């Protein structure tokens, strides 16, 4: 029997593993990716102070600590099922089944898409796919591409593609349909970019912070948005143009682009062909909760957290005995927050398994405070109302316990 099994070797999972191991627990981490680090591995952002957040280096530090602490980290292993038995959890993987006293799900996030005609063609990929190909595998996704979907993640990753010498000719809105609607509206796109400001292209921010103050000016900014886009890092960002279709015979050859009105409706007479050999689709992230769902854990739908999240409290405990969650499975936030949440889960698990140790309780409290501090200082925020999302989910934990009694 293992003390703790952690699914996911991302920033949350590894941080939790290291805390548990420091407290003397026997820990095993499994991850289906071939390297430890999760989505941290592809990240490369310039911080406001001019330093670089290099995910590969951050992941290396976490992995080295794990190795020193004798955490068993197994990569290339997928967990396909989990079951609660009387006094333990059984974890089913592609390399055998294991028993554990505590189970931490730190499976991170997945991407949502913006479906438009032609998006199944080879050469069309999610923006995250391009990030991993570029920064982790160091393989070129193409020579010249376009990005569909203007949001915090696509802005960051487009910059990363440029750094690697891959040309992105433009960023566009998606053509409007019933499912892309929200991402296809110029005004709401502009507003959401401004709210999550600090990482967004600085020019857009400057323009925005000026217009932000007055609702009426915001729509003016959108109305008079330059036809040729606004150049950010030498690349046009088009809030008034959308990709209506991706075209190609056996693979992507280009996109059909048209100007759109302030509501995102295309002006068909303006349709033009723009050549491209790759296309990235950026629809945002949602918590990857599949294992929590099959465990029978209750859920809440909280838009501020990115979708359905397993009910849990500030200690990262779910209402189900021995089941914990940390990182993006609990809501979409940056890797720094995920690390701090992982530490909380680590202390929480240690406290529950090593009932005699009183010091851990203080450390747990401190770790919870660190999560809050990190959240308040985050340079990357995926949702402006993240705080209210967190309050809602913690409140739902209390309600779940109350109705159980």
């Amino acid at each position, binding site marked *: *029997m*293992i003390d703790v099994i952690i699914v996911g070797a991302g920033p949350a999972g590894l941080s939790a593993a290291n805390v548990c191991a420091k407290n003397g627990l026997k820990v095993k981490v499994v991850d*289906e990716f071939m390297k430890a680090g999760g989505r941290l591995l592809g990240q490369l952002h310039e911080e406001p102070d001019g330093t670089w957040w290099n995910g590969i280096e951050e992941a290396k530090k976490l992995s080295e600590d794990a190795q020193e602490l004798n955490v068993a980290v197994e990569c290339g292993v*997928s*967990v*396909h*099922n989990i079951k609660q038995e009387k006094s333990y959890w059984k974890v*089913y993987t*592609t*390399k*055998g*089944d*294991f*028993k554990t006293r505590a189970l931490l799900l730190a499976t991170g996030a*997945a991407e*949502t*898409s913006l*479906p*438009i*005609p*032609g*998006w*199944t063609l080879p050469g069309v990929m999610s923006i995250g796919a391009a990030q991993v190909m570029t920064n982790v595998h160091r393989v070129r996704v193409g020579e010249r591409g376009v990005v569909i979907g203007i949001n915090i993640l696509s802005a960051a990753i487009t910059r990363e593609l440029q750094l690697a010498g891959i040309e992105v000719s433009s960023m566009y809105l998606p*053509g409007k*349909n*019933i*499912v892309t609607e929200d991402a296809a509206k110029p005004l709401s796109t502009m507003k959401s970019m401004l709210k999550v400001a600090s990482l967004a292209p600085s020019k857009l921010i400057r323009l925005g912070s000026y217009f932000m103050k007055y609702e009426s000016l915001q729509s003016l900014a959108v109305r008079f948005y330059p036809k040729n886009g606004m150049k950010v890092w030498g690349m046009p960002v088009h809030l008034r143009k959308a990709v*209506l*279709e991706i075209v190609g015979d056996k693979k992507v050859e280009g996109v059909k682009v048209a100007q759109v009105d302030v509501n995102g409706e295309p002006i068909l007479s303006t349709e033009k062909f723009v050549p491209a050999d790759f296309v990235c689709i950026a629809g945002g992230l*949602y918590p*990857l*909760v*599949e*294992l929590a*769902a*099959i465990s029978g854990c*209750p*859920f*809440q*739908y909280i*838009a501020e957290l990115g*979708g*359905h999240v397993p009910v849990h409290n500030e200690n990262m405990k779910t209402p189900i005995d021995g089941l914990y969650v940390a990182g993006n499975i609990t809501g979409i936030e940056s890797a720094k927050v995920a690390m701090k949440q992982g530490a909380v889960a680590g202390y929480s698990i240690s406290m529950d398994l090593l009932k005699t140790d009183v010091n851990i309780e203080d450390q747990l409290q401190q770790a919870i405070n660190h999560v809050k501090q990190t959240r308040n200082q985050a340079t990357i925020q995926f949702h402006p109302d993240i705080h209210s999302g967190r309050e809602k989910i913690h409140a739902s934990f209390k309600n779940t316990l109350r109705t159980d009694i």
Partner: protein
Amino acid sequence: MRDHKTIICRCEEVSLEDLVRTAESYRCSSRELKLRTRAGMGQCGGRTCRALVDSITQKCTNDSTPHDIPLGYQAPIRPITFSIMGEKKDE
């Protein structure tokens, strides 16, 4: 307008037009929509399209998103070979 050409579920190649038509005529839940169209029933377990299918359901029926996950998950949530299923390697 281009909805017949817009694939929502890549695994089963279900179009937006099919989904909207079905959702509107049956005014059904995401689960029923999935069973009727096969959207979300393919190899990926709905990981790519579930949010889209949910949003079609909500927009066509004017419902808000329920707290229970509309399209449930079922084990195994990752592809496994039969040899793995037969294997007993408890630790």
